[in-house]
């Protein structure tokens, strides 16, 4: 009966540990949140299934080349794009090709909210450092507060590759949970009167402005923060393809096939990188806690800065401070949350368009922050 024992030894049942089971359940929960609750399914379903793939127990000494950390395995080759930070700029290319920046251009003072929400990044950076993480690790953890998955993966691939799994999962989980995390904070920091503020309709944006924005906005932001070049370069390039009016076929491919392929590969490999042995650590727990705090600080930062700006604005020109919450990016979920909370207090208040401005500004803001941290810490 030697052969029976040998076959058993190769099977998953022989190598399974509690760690595997916990992670398989966690993967199942991600999939459930994505499919059952419809929280960002395009991210959570691939990541969740990736967690299943990455946590199937097997005899590692057999050299079958199937684990994501085994040289020569398929998952290892695909993971390369995460590890080297190649996928995030490609995703930004697609996001650029599908984002309409006119919300930002039509009411440019709201971009400041997108900047203010980045306070979450830097306060978490300080907090992580205080908790004993190195400055490199702290920078990578802080970026979770940017509420932008690709930016988080890009920065952690450069600063702290060993923490990338936990950081990426935290960033994407909290992005998915924005509708759960943000509303209580939004209600805590605003009065009912403030939540009912109606804002002026936005002006129309000209085509020339839309074409010039990705070019000049790109040069300005990367001159200030060259570290953001890979992310902002692709974001604005994608947007130029969209707005130029003569490269529509490239923009279409960038925002469809290209971003879909990269999303599938990124999601499944990030999920699979959470192998129980490397993932179930004290550090991961800290990262999750810090990430949650980071999100809350970012939300508060946006709201409070909106209130601060209101001090200087005339009565008929005031900002509804709920819009500040959209500054965390997590496009377009947080803008939708703003619209939803606003509508709870005044059904006729249509905040979505106003929230989109800080929302896309938040994407640029986090990329700039990532560039700063990359330059200063690396």
């Amino acid at each position, binding site marked *: 009966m030697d052969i029976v024992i040998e076959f058993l030894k190769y099977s998953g049942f022989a190598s399974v540990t509690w760690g595997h089971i916990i992670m398989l359940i966690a993967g199942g929960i991600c999939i459930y949140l994505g499919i059952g609750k419809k929280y960002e399914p395009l991210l959570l379903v691939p990541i969740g299934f990736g967690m299943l793939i990455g946590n199937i127990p097997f005899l590692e000494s057999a050299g079958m080349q199937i684990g994501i950390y085994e040289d020569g395995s398929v998952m290892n080759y695909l993971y390369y794009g995460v590890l080297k930070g190649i996928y995030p700029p490609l995703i930004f290319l697609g996001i650029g090709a599908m984002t309409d920046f006119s919300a930002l*251009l039509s009411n440019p003072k709201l971009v400041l909210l997108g*900047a203010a929400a980045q306070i979450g990044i*830097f306060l978490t950076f300080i907090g992580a450092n205080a908790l004993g993480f190195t400055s490199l690790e702290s920078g990578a953890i802080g970026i979770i507060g940017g509420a932008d998955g690709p930016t988080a993966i890009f920065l952690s691939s450069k600063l702290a590759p060993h923490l990338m799994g936990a950081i990426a999962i935290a960033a994407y989980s909290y992005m998915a949970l924005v509708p759960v995390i943000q509303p209580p904070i939004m209600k805590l920091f605003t009065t009912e009167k403030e939540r009912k503020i109606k804002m002026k309709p936005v002006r*129309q944006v*000209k085509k020339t*402005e839309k074409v010039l924005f990705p070019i000049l*906005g790109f040069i300005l932001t990367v001159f200030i923060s060259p570290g953001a070049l890979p992310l902002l370069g692709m974001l604005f390039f994608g947007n130029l393809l969209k707005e130029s009016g003569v490269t529509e076929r490239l923009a279409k491919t960038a925002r469809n096939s290209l971003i879909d392929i990269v999303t599938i590969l990124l999601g499944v490999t990030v999920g699979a990188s959470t192998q129980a042995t490397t993932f179930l650590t004290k550090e991961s727990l800290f990262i999750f806690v810090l990430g949650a705090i980071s999100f809350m600080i970012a939300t508060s930062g946006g709201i409070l800065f909106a209130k601060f700006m209101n001090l200087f604005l005339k009565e008929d020109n005031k900002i509804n401070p709920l819009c500040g919450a959209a500054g965390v990016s997590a496009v377009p979920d947080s803008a939708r949350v703003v619209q939803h909370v606003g509508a709870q207090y005044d059904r006729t208040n249509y905040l979505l368009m106003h929230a989109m401005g800080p929302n896309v500004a938040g994407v640029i803001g986090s990329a*700039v922050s990532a560039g700063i941290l990359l330059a200063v810490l690396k």
Partner: protein
Amino acid sequence: MYKTLLKYISTVLFFVSFGLAQENGENRIYLISLFGILIVMLSLVGIYFFMRFIAWMIKYSKYKRLKQIKEKKNKLRIIELKNNRPDIETVLAISSAIHMELKYKMEEEKAILTINKLIRPYSPWSSKILSMRRVPDRR
């Protein structure tokens, strides 16, 4: 009245915190964080002014070109035009009409999407895999 006060207080607080961080010069982490957020602000404020400048430039250049053309042709008509310039209400009415039109188009598109969804049946008989590998003709 009290608002102006609050305004000044908050401004002062901001610079005080700034100064405190500066004092604590040996702790790089704090300084990086402070200047980090300031630079983020700076870059987005930069975008703000840049885009306002461009908007202004576009408007100005258009206005100038328009003026030149008109001047060459008929001075009287310019004055007429100025008098007949549509008031803000008219502009709003027109733009909302356009918006409604677009919205209607959007709904139309959605309707099409719904139809597409309906006529794409997922049974093994119609699944795309069948069209991928064909049975030879001669059978």
